[in-house]
């Protein structure tokens, strides 16, 4: 076997350079660890850059009644109590400090009259809570973190994809990766590894996610033996673009509704009155997405199969100032002037609540040496995430993961592993070049996306899910045979053949979990089980690999302490 690869060594290796990965790196660096960060795209292009609406933190700058307790309660209720309560608590308590820290590193948020950080309303949040920069909050966040990271001396490996974690007797000690550019291999030795690879949305046809979101981190952790949790909870954002075809799925930020946008059906009815008369457009995402879906299904949709979202009753100048990128996005891509007329929107696959199971305080996974944060980790959001809670999640748990990883690395012995793992990883990666099949990975991906879109979408049934499992099985076979043309030099077809493998793992995990959960909760809606089931309120679905096969287990929720229960019970209004 070719042993042609370079080797790098770090105390802490962070896979993923989005908000979570960068925040983890900064913290590990501050602890004196040597840190390397790997990302599939160029630095600064991760999903975090696309986040628009804002970052949730109970700073109480606009609504002085806000505090961590309310934020905690909103998060738990939004997640239908399936959240890890300790994570929800830490998140609510620590996010204001994390936001302030960003500001001290040079980020510039929109301001209140008094010169504090301005906050806006968002779905499911009791108070105006989202710190924002117009509608490009994620850009501000990732630039701030990235520039600081580069200044502080993080080693960044751009356009480099990890395809396998290397282990040594149950402990994660390294990673195998290839450079996308030249197709050459690189092996990382590390005492601790943080996974911050984001979500899985690319397995669906209509999604707000980019090519990067193929669930790599979850697949890596799964293959290394870590547990995945709550995989059935995939968030469909209620408002993605529906027309023209090329932009289908691209996100329309919730900030449009936060700033007063109104949803209507073909007949001009403000249909949210039917589904959630109290919170209307600012209901939680699962509710709004299902409402739009139902309107369309029952024949009240717009010309291109969506709903109308209208902000044109606000002054044109205000809209352009608070939602500039939405204004341009519609103007340039859909020929719609949102200051004059409504947008057409429909649900789009957006966010993964489930992921790698972690411990709340340290973000450590169920195997040693492996940590996870951000969208790749599970727990904080339960069965449904509130808008704005992701960016704060990245900062709070990115920091905690970096801290714990650095501390773990201090105590850990030097990295070592059995080199046969490398040979195997190489062989697997190069297989598509010698496969005899004629099918291109793109064709397989298209079919996978159809399967997930049609059978594991917003509404699910037993029949659909079972059918999906069969289809996934066939796709696995096709993937193993798919072949690629060309050389190893920047070859997207080849890259996709690995991504497919990861997508299939997470797709199967989602489907298995969804089939098992015989209730409807948060983002998981079963037509055959339309109600919440108190029994399932106490259980997580766990996915783990056992003797080469995917197994599902159930694990009871940890009991919530008295004081938190009280907070939760307060103001049941």
């Amino acid at each position, binding site marked *: 076997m070719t042993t042609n690869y370079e080797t790098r060594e770090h105390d802490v290796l962070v896979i993923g350079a989005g908000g979570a990965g960068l925040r983890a790196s900064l913290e590990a660096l501050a602890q004196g660890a040597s840190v390397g960060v790997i990302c599939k795209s160029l630095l600064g292009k991760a999903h975090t850059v696309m986040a628009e609406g804002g970052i949730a933190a109970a700073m109480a700058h606009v609504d002085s009644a806000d505090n961590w307790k309310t934020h905690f309660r909103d998060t738990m209720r939004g997640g239908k109590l399936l959240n890890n309560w300790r994570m929800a608590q830490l998140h609510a308590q620590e996010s204001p400090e994390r936001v302030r820290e960003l500001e001290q590193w040079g980020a510039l948020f929109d301001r209140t009259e008094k010169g504090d950080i301005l906050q806006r309303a968002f779905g499911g949040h009791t108070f105006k809570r989202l710190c924002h920069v117009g509608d490009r909050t994620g850009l501000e966040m990732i630039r701030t973190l990235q520039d600081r990271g580069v200044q502080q001396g993080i080693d960044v490996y751009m356009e480099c994809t990890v395809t396998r974690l290397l282990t040594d007797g149950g402990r994660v000690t390294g990673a195998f990766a290839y450079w996308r550019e030249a197709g050459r291999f690189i092996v990382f030795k590390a005492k601790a590894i943080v996974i911050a690879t984001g979500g899985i949305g690319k397995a669906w046809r209509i999604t707000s996610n980019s090519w990067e979101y193929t669930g790599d981190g979850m697949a890596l952790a799964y293959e290394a033996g870590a547990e995945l949790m709550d995989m059935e909870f995939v968030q469909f954002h209620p408002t993605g673009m529906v027309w023209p075809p090329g932009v289908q799925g691209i996100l329309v930020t919730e900030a449009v509704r936060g700033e007063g946008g109104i949803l209507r059906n073909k007949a001009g009815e403000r249909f949210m009155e039917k589904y959630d008369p109290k919170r209307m457009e600012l209901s939680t995402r699962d509710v709004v997405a299902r409402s739009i879906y139902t309107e369309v299904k029952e024949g009240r949709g717009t010309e291109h199969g969506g709903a109308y979202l209208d902000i044109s009753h606000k002054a044109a100048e205000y809209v352009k100032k608070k939602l500039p990128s939405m204004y341009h996005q519609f103007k340039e891509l859909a020929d719609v002037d949102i200051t004059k007329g409504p947008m057409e929107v429909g649900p789009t696959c957006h966010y993964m609540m489930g992921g790698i199971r972690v411990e709340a305080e340290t973000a450590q996974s169920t195997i040693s040496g492996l940590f996870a944060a951000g969208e790749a980790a599970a727990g904080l959001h339960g069965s449904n995430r509130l808008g704005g809670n992701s960016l704060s999640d990245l900062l709070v748990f990115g920091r905690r993961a970096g801290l714990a990883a650095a501390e773990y690395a201090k105590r850990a012995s030097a990295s070592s592993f059995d080199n046969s793992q490398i040979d195997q990883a190489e062989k697997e990666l190069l297989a598509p070049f010698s496969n005899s099949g004629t099918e291109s990975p793109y064709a397989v991906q298209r079919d996978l996306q159809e399967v997930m879109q049609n059978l594991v979408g917003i509404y699910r049934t037993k029949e659909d899910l079972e059918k999906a499992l069969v289809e996934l099985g066939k796709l696995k076979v096709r993937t193993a045979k798919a072949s690629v043309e060309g050389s190893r030099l920047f070859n997207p*077809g080849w890259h996709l053949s690995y991504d497919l493998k990861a997508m299939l793992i997470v797709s199967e995990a989602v489907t298995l979990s969804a089939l098992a959960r015989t209730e409807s909760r948060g983002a998981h809606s079963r037509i055959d089980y339309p109600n919440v089931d108190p029994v399932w309120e106490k259980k997580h679905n766990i996915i783990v690999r056992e003797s080469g096969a995917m197994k599902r287990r159930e694990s009871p929720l940890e009991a919530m302490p008295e004081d938190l229960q009280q907070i939760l019970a307060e103001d049941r209004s």
Partner: protein
Amino acid sequence: MKEATLLVFRGDSNGGQTIAYRVPVAPGMVVLDALHHIQGHLAPDLAVRWNCKAGKCGSCSAEVNGRPRLTCKTRMDDLPQDQPITVLPMKSFPRIKDLVTDVSWNYRVNRKIPPFEPRKGVEWKISQLDVDRVQEFRKCIECFLCQDVCHVLREHDKQEQFAGPRFFVRIAGLEMHPLDGRHRAALLKDQLGLGLCNITKCCTEVCPEEIRITDNAIIPLKERVVDEFYDPLTMLFRKVRGQ
């Protein structure tokens, strides 16, 4: 269905050629959609960078019909329908493969810029009127189209002496940050080559974020350099005030 012909550069650092592909045209289609169609059906190894498909990440830069553009924001129906559409990689950066170029130089330049450092004893109160001006610079999505079009880099290859418009924008964002306490005028003049810019405004013309790079970032920075190094009166004034 209507079809369009794309002439796409295929090749690597050793050279290459443009190859013609026929692509069906759907309503509202952008050039990146066409490239994806080629990838998905005709040439799976076509190298293209992209992420957001919505003009937010700055990955998909290329030269469409000779103009530096984001391919995800270039509508097919805005281009002449009767002629083939040429899509080439950015010219100012070394080619890697097809439309992918080596932009790592930019990341190296960025490292030369001293980061934000708050003035001593600032209260973290900032007025919106101060934020407004700087936010324009912070809109930059690092598409590097301005770097590509700037003739100082494109025609004169001054990569060593010149930071390029993207980083003047970044420095403007730092220099005009209401709480920043550093001065970067000397750096701009001596190491980042602000003087090499002859304010011919091509960067402003191509910026997809509509940042008025030349007028709002570069010229104000040039004026700050003048304050510091070329204006005897201000220099004297500063001496007298003991600053």
